């Protein structure tokens, strides 16, 4: 007896349709899986029989072979429990095989026969939609995300018995509760809560407007974390495509609370994070790392110098390409990872170098070692570097609250729009993405602006890379000012955002 249903395996964030064939033949009762099942799928072997029996269905006491095709693809993840069970039920004629045609199944089964929420259902639903299937059956907890795929019927079931009943015509799924499409994102934090730090607030605005990465150097208590957290609130709202990508990644990571993610993610991994945790990986089932969870959002690395060297080095690929490719014995996977990097560091090991009120107690050689850690290929890719001073009580009291995030976001969106129009032919969307030669060609700097930058190269040791970075940032400042040309004023402000730490002793940084 033979049955065949559609399942989906997720590699990276991409779902691949898998034909799950079941054959029930003569022989001692057994269940064999073929077609490169991964460890998580092998697991399912022992789970499916109790689940089927708990659903008051019959497990055929014969020799069962389930083949997952295509055979060249390694299948992994718990989402194949349901299709394997349905394949066996179809082969044993307990489910109407003809009606299962055109449906995909995804979901993990418990021994009780319940369908439990499963990571990667959105990716599975997208794959089903792409393959032109009629619908997909998913755990009811994942129905909201699966419904994000247009033109795909979604059946959210909470138990295997319901699924079988649905196809026998004895059960109707509850209509998926489409969460109201909130057009306005309600953030729990707002830029107006930052007192003082006007220069840092301005730098955040510039970073958001041009998609620039940001390094903040300042003493403990200066408010670096507070500022970083608020960068996500002034980035432009996620487009639907971006939101889908973010939702998909969070779904694969099993971190999705409900339907579509509308807020730009803010991820702040602790500095003890492993390279695999930061960049993605895992031994069999490849999981997205923090860089991918921060896709289209903000990745905040507090205490940058404390991060493991291999982890930080690994950030170079996503910073350049906007994606991570992970290669393991089990295969390779690609995760999108286009984020704004915000890094924070103390000016020295004790944290008080350059602070007017507290004396730094670090030995000189330790400051040098520390400064060396704050240079290198990663920091080279950070356009805006800012010293954030620790404010005195007096300075704090004198400050009125700043602008709310919404007002800043409006300016940021206008500046981004200018960039999108300008770079439409290049397939780029922000100044930060421009390669060096292109920025020199496209920035439209006035002669006065060029002269200023050239002067900074001659007299203040601005490097070639530093020149390009300053020009990019100046281009963004001009975009914020709605100016077609980069003028001298834009350049001088940009030069102020390449602070090198706090004192002469860190001068060689950058």
């Amino acid at each position: 007896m033979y049955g065949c249903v559609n399942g989906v395996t997720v590699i990276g964030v991409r779902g691949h349709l898998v034909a799950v064939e079941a054959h029930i033949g003569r022989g001692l009762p057994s269940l064999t899986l073929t077609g490169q099942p991964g460890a998580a799928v092998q697991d399912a072997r022992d789970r499916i029989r109790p689940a089927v029996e708990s659903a008051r269905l019959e497990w055929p006491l014969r020799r069962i072979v389930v083949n997952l095709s295509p055979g060249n693809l390694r299948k992994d993840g718990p989402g194949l429990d349901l299709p394997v069970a349905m394949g066996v039920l179809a082969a044993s004629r307990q489910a109407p095989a003809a009606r299962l045609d055109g449906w995909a199944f995804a979901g993990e089964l418990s021994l009780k026969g319940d369908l439990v929420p499963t990571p990667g259902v959105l990716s599975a639903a997208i794959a089903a939609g792409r393959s032109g299937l009629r619908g997909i059956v998913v755990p009811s907890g994942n129905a909201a995300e699966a419904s994000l795929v247009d033109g795909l019927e979604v059946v959210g079931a909470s138990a295997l018995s319901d699924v079988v009943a649905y196809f026998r015509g004895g059960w109707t799924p509850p209509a998926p509760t489409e969460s109201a499409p909130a057009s306005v994102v309600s953030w729990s934090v707002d830029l107006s809560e930052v007192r003082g730090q006007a220069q840092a607030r301005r730098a955040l605005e510039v970073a958001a407007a041009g998609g620039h990465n940001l390094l903040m150097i300042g003493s403990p208590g200066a408010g670096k974390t507070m500022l970083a957290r608020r960068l996500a609130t002034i980035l432009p709202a996620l487009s639907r495509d971006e939101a889908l990508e973010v939702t998909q990644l969070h779904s694969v990571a099993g971190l999705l609370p409900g339907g579509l993610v509308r807020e730009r993610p803010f991820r702040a991994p602790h500095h003890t994070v492993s390279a695999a945790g930061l960049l993605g990986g895992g031994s069999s089932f490849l999981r997205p790392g923090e860089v991918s969870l921060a896709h289209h959002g903000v990745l905040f690395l507090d205490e940058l110098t404390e991060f493991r060297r291999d982890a930080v080095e690994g950030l170079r690929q996503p910073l350049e390409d906007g994606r991570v490719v992970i290669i393991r014995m089990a295969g390779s996977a690609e995760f999108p990872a286009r984020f704004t990097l915000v890094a924070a560091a103390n000016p020295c090991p004790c944290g008080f170098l350059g602070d007017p009120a507290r004396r730094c107690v670090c030995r000189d050689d330790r400051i040098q070692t520390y400064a060396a850690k704050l240079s290198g290929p990663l920091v080279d890719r950070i356009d805006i570097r800012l010293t954030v001073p620790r404010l005195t009580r007096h300075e704090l009291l004198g400050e009125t609250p700043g602008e709310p995030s919404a007002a800043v976001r409006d300016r940021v969106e206008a500046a981004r729009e200018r960039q999108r129009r300008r770079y439409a032919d290049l397939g780029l969307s922000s100044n930060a993405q421009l390669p060096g030669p292109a920025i020199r060609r496209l920035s439209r700097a006035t002669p006065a602006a060029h002269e200023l930058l050239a002067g900074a190269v001659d007299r203040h040791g601005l490097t070639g890379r530093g020149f390009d970075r300053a020009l990019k940032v100046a281009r963004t400042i001009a975009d914020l000012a709605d100016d077609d040309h980069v003028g001298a004023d834009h350049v001088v402000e940009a030069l102020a955002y390449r602070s090198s730490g706090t004192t002469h002793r860190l001068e060689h940084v950058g």
Partner: protein
Amino acid sequence: MSAESSSRRSGTGTLTAPSPWPVWPDGFDATPADRRALLVLSALRGATPRALIPIANRVGSASGVLAEIAAGRVGSENDAAFARSLDPAEIGAAARRCGARFVTWGSPDYPAQLRHIHDPPAALYVQGRETSGSEVLVAVVGARRCTSLGREIASAIGHGLGAAGATVVSGAARGIDAAAHEGALEAGGATLAVLGTGLDVGYPVGGRRLVERIRAAGTLVAEYAPGTPPHPWHFPARNRIVAGLCCATVVVEGAVGSGSMITAEHAMEFGRDVYAVPGAVTNPLSAVPMQLIREGATMIRGAEDLVNDLGLDSALEHPVAPREVPSEAERKVLDRLAGPTLPDVVASALSVGVPEVVGTLMRLELRGLVRSVGGRYEATLAGTRAGRRTRGQTD
């Protein structure tokens, strides 16, 4: 304190009164054997002047002192062993290899000022330019970990002294010391560094280039034999020589308990003038200068004050190259920078936008009129002068 300085300054002649402290006996280094003994003594750890001067006065000669140590009657066993085994010819050869002269207590080259301090060194290794007896030597000392402003002030003082023909004396340490030496070298002036190691040791590591520049253009002095490593107790001892060589000591910045306080205290004890550059009372590095001012040191605002007070030729031109004339907007910003100031504060005081202020500050910084200190901005010496000058013109 500076009122009496003119009499002391004029060199060897005026310091004829006997030193109030015990000194080495006359003729204690008279014979070649004595001078060989002094070479060995300069290499012994325990052979401090404080311990040896009483013995020298009892036995009367350097070779006698060495014999006492070698016999184990004075000092540690270690010293006794080294006193027996060290070869003076080798030490002398090492000194010659690095081009040092060995100036002993009885030599006419022995600095006259040094005869009037407590625990004067029995002998010095001197390398580089010969110092004449009539030079005015001024010590400029301060924190190694100083502020940018402090460095700038020290450099201007060094420059001013150098241009006025005085010799800048310091310890070649990082920070204020180095800035003072560099200022003097820039002005083509004389400079002298007292090291806490042997002359050939190359310490501090980060300051090797400065030491080499002083070796080439100025004078290096040490009381320790070539090859002596930097022991921590060498540096306070070195400071007494810095203070002792000079008619005046200037302290630029120093935190509580720092070496600059020790140098200034020595200078006061030896009856030399002490000058201090004040700073903000909230700045921990102002602790030593402010304390000294309270104790009667002369407050100076910069090189000009010092050169005038010392009665030196005050044909002092400022070290700034072309004078920077700030624009009206820049002058307004400069005016607001009394001490390290946040751009926010400047912006709200002038009712202009922060980006604009940041831009103006950056323009000023590019021209060296303003510097950024940990996210705040302060005027440099040139910036202060530029602000002052334009105000004078517009008023």
